[in-house]
């Protein structure tokens, strides 16, 4: 079975500062990796995903994540955050080619301070 660990439950950061949200996974088989974001009072939505190919993946709003197989990590980064990035971020894993769906981490609350 797959599992996901998000090491930080809360990350406060000042506006325009860089941020890294950490995610480590455990799996004995090939996996797909995802970051979902949940803005206040909204449903979860996909931010970015790694399926195969380039290990660096990017979102349309400036986030990026790098798949590191040797360290079993998929950390999320942004070089300069905005107030509007305040949300809860969930890392998730799915066994490649499996019909069974995502296993989520416990989430990281990112709070961007003015």
């Amino acid at each position, binding site marked *: 079975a797959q599992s*996901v660990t*998000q090491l930080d*439950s809360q990350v406060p950061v000042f506006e325009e500062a860089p941020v890294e949200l950490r995610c480590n996974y455990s799996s004995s088989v090939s996996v*797909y990796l*995802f970051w979902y974001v949940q803005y206040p*009072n*909204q*449903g*979860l*939505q*996909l931010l970015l*995903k790694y*399926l195969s190919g380039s290990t660096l993946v990017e979102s349309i709003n400036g986030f990026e994540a790098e798949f590191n197989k040797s360290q079993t990590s998929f950390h999320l980064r942004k070089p300069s955050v905005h107030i509007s990035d305040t949300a809860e971020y*969930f890392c*998730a894993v*799915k066994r490649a*080619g499996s*019909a*069974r*769906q*995502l*296993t*989520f*981490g*416990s*989430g990281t609350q990112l709070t961007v301070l003015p």
Partner: protein
Amino acid sequence: EAGVAQSPRYKIIEKRQSVAFWCNPISGHATLYWYQQILGQGPKLLIQFQNNGVVDDSQLPKDRFSAERLKGVDSTLKIQPAKLEDSAVYLCASSRGVEGTGELFFGEGSRLTVL
């Protein structure tokens, strides 16, 4: 394109009472999921449907939880009788199929408080 619809948004009941949540997925999405999100935790899959068949219900507490998707479109999740530990947000999600990309589209959730 309309998103995943869920109702009710909020429900407060006493323990041992019953409750039902409804979900209507995005049109054309064959796969529907119910997740339970307890405060401070990530979403946990309760049940996954492909059309009106069950793909995975290994984490569904079947002594009190039940779910159905009779016509392969909308779905109902029922809890009877409710326990205090069932207090959570119940998330419905849908996707076009079970394979590949893993992009799920979520509703806003139904928040249950059991007193």
